[in-house]
């Protein structure tokens, strides 16, 4: 019932919006801002399709009220310009592609937090980003490739 003015940055650009209390971040991104790279999959924080970075930390946009990101910096797949995308293509890190934005945003957060992440740390970190085409080996290879190139 209550409405809230929220301000945050989306991939570096200032956003100033007014939202009802129950508005979810994933809906603000997709429907209010047209940033549809972030998908809404399971809607209960399990699948990883809606992974975004909130001040650098990966979170599920389907579990965040938009009011909770007031004052933060949000990064979505639209804001990624890293060797990760090329590596996913080179290594066949996807098949149908629905999980790819979340995989990329999660992997980018990992390499920012732990540039020297081990293969086991990559597997553990990406565990919450489900790929139902089972492209996990390609995804893991792509992330390791970017890590090794640094």
């Amino acid at each position, binding site marked *: 019932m209550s409405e809230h003015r929220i301000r945050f940055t989306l991939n570096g650009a200032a956003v100033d919006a007014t939202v009802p*209390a*129950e508005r979810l971040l994933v809906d603000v991104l997709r429907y209010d801002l047209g940033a549809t790279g972030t998908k809404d999959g399971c*809607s209960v*924080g399990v699948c*990883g399709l809606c992974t975004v970075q909130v001040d650098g930390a990966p979170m599920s946009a389907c*579990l965040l*009220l938009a009011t909770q990101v007031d004052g933060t910096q949000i990064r979505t797949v639209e804001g990624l310009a890293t060797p990760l995308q090329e590596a996913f293509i080179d290594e066949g890190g996807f098949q149908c592609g629905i999980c790819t934005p979340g995989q990329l945003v999660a992997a980018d957060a990992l390499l920012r937090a732990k540039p020297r992440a081990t293969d086991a740390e990559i597997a553990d970190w990406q565990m*919450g980003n489900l790929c139902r085409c089972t492209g996990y080996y390609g995804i893991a290879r792509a992330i390791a490739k970017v890590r090794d190139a640094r």
Partner: protein
Amino acid sequence: MRPFDYVEPETLDEALEILAGDPDDTLVMAGGTSLVILMKQDLVRPERVLGLRRIAELREIRTTDAGLSLGALATHGALARSQAVRDHAAALAATFAAVATVRIREQATLGGNLAHADPAQDPPVTLLALDGVVIARSRFGERRIPLDALFVDLFETSLEPGEILLRVELAPLPAGARATYKKFLPATLDDYATVSVAAVIATDASGVCTHARIALGGAATVPLRAREAERSLAGRRLDDAAIREAAALAAAATDPIDDLRGSADYKRAMAGVWTERALREVA
């Protein structure tokens, strides 16, 4: 999601005032991972949600004269990374690191986890074994609640209307104490445990047990202390017979529910198996 009013006070006093004004129709939100799902699924219908995120003092993790103080808004990720937490008990940091996925750990908080009172959660189990004490405050004052008095029933705590969970305090462990947390995950690594066990053990120079705590998750409608099992170890050498007897007593203390993670009988049997494994590790 049904519409609701959202308030996000800057101070704890303000938050307590708002909560006191309408405690029955106000739900307190920390990280929101559980509450947002419950609201999406229409399982709770608050008139008002009171967000705590701006109250920075609730985020603190610090070592005090009395031990370790963990703020209610500390995230699982922050607790898993905290040197102070690792110095107190590496098993506690490992417990937070074992919760769900990195996304949940970055959003979900200690206070939210405890107030949600889901018996399949990980942190309550290890915190029980570490003799955690919850500090809660209402407009009328502060209360210390030993963790095993916090959990009343499935998703039900002894927090009073108008109270906010502020922090958990952990007294220093006995010298040389060893702690472990074991999580039985037969399906996927991001799942809730079928059963889980935390054990904290200290022995004297001759190998006799001077301190024993055993706690179980997923084993009843609340996280459980296995007190008889603990008592059976006191004053004994932790040999094979003592460990097996304690594991059997721990299994007997459980009262699991049948669900997708196993039948009650299976969970009871597994509680014994995993208690035995935990005790062997710290004996």
